[in-house]
């Protein structure tokens, strides 16, 4: 409790009032996290003292900027336990990381009729890149079904693997159901069946310790903005052997070794995939976010979120007229999506907002999952290291008021 007060004081926005006397209750961290001063200060400091373009510069600022940019990559690489910092490619976000694989690996190694296996619980980021690829080169998409209680159907998964997909791509943690998928086992099965594995880590890396070597995944994608870092930057982890065989994605400065009018030769990893002036200040902020997370400790963060989620789950479950999605017994990530009978999620969210409570309403970029459950939209509360039990109490109170108003 002391600890969480201290943590909250590191986040300037948590001092904000939405209206005079109405403090912000931020329960939308799955959409994007808030940022501690450490992260903001590191970026301001970068701009105020070191700002320069990187890699090709000889002068002091260029050297400092390059060092900061690469030091951040080193931190991120260590954070996810990559073998080498050359396996960490900066992207704009999770979405770009997945698109990079679809373009650079997919267009080189997939042929018409090849199967890419996805799941029904994917975020649009892990669906649409494959739709685009299918429409352009004729691959086939299959989906691991989601069971009624929000888990992946593992028996079906094993059957689908018999179709010999070339790639299995799925989320580590669902941003709607809270489900945490058994990545290690799924990767093992996939590899046994000869498939590569891409994992969408947007909702996992921010919340618990991830070891890409131990999980033995081939690609892993995540976003800084969901893990205390700035917008505009994310990362793709990829195994070196794979990244080396892939074709470049975007062309331009920095990703080349040599350019002539007639053609170019690509740069070494990781630069091969970083075209043009990158998000330098954002990389610095990303590195500081990792510093902050490491300092608090990923296990402590996970523990806190499990507790908050359990607390919220049990209170919400006991609210009449409220239906929760996802499996209750399973260890869940800190997101709870629910329906309030007879009241549209937009109305729920807007009424809660007038009490300062920020929740999300909609399909949360998982329309197919909502279609599966036969509802167009849900309300979602999501938690992070700075979420307090008292905020959950206010959410419950708020929901009761909404129900009364519509009653």
């Amino acid at each position, binding site marked *: 409790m002391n600890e969480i007060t201290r943590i909250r004081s590191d986040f300037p926005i948590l001092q904000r009032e939405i209206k005079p006397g109405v403090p912000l209750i931020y329960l939308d961290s799955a959409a994007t996290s808030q940022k501690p001063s450490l992260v903001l200060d590191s970026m301001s400091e970068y701009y105020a003292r070191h700002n320069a373009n990187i890699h090709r510069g000889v002068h002091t600022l260029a050297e400092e900027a390059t060092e900061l940019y690469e030091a951040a990559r080193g931190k991120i690489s260590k954070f996810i336990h990559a073998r080498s910092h050359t396996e960490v490619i900066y992207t704009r976000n999770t979405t770009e990381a997945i698109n990079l694989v679809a373009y650079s690996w997919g267009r080189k190694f997939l042929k018409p009729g090849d199967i890419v296996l996805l799941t029904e619980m994917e975020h649009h980021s892990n669906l649409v890149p494959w739709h685009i690829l299918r429409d352009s080169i004729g691959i086939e998409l299959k989906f691991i079904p989601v069971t009624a209680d929000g888990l992946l159907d593992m028996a079906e998964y094993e059957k689908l693997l018999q179709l010999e997909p070339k790639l299995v791509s799925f989320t580590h943690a669902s941003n709607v159901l809270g489900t945490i998928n058994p990545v290690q086992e799924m990767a093992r099965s996939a590899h046994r069946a000869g498939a590569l594995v891409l994992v969408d880590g947007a909702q996992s890396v921010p919340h618990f310790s991830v070891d890409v070597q131990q999980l033995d995944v081939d690609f892993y994608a995540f976003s800084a903005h969901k893990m205390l870092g700035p917008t505009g930057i994310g990362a793709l982890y990829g195994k070196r052997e794979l990244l080396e065989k892939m074709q470049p994605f975007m062309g331009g400065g920095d990703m080349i070794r040599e350019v002539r009018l007639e053609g170019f030769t690509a740069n070494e990893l990781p630069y091969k995939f970083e075209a043009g002036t990158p998000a330098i200040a954002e990389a610095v902020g990303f590195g500081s976010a990792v510093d902050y997370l490491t300092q608090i400790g990923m296990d402590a963060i996970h523990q806190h979120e499990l507790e908050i989620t359990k607390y919220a789950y049990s209170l919400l479950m006991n609210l009449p007229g409220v239906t929760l999605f996802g499996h209750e017994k399973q260890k869940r990530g800190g997101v709870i999506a629910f329906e309030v009978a007879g009241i*549209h999620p*937009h*109305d729920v969210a*807007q*009424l809660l907002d*007038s009490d300062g409570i920020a929740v999300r309403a*909609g399909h949360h970029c998982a329309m197919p999952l909502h279609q599966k459950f036969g509802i*167009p*939209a849900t309300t979602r509360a999501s938690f992070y290291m700075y979420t307090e039990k008292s905020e959950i109490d206010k959410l419950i109170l708020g929901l009761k008021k909404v129900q009364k*108003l519509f009653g």
Partner: protein
Amino acid sequence: MDDMYREAIIEHYKNPGYHGVLEPADISFEDNNPLCGDHLRIDLRIDAGGCITEAAFSGHGCAISQASADMLLGSIIGKPLDEVKKMNKQDILDLIGIELGPVRLKCALLSLKVLKSAAYGIHQGESVELDLD
């Protein structure tokens, strides 16, 4: 909490005056807002002089989209179709009388979009850009 939801909105949502379908109607149009799953259909009956004599909406959606549809239809009975074509965002905002952020504005404007599409005689499925501003 309820300052944004004037009683009138809740009232129109719970007890709409124009909910239903007209069979047969002179003009019908439907559309949806995929972002929130709202779906709205509007049926109109028009007299010889081109004036709206009857109107009804059906579908599902949030209180804002449903209430604004109900208020909107209430405001157009007896009016010539041509007048409907001139209606815009501000007319809706005046009707519902609360401030709306960009996301909720789309909910409120769905009914206007469907109504104007009907008024312009746009065919279902045709892609036409309507000016609502």
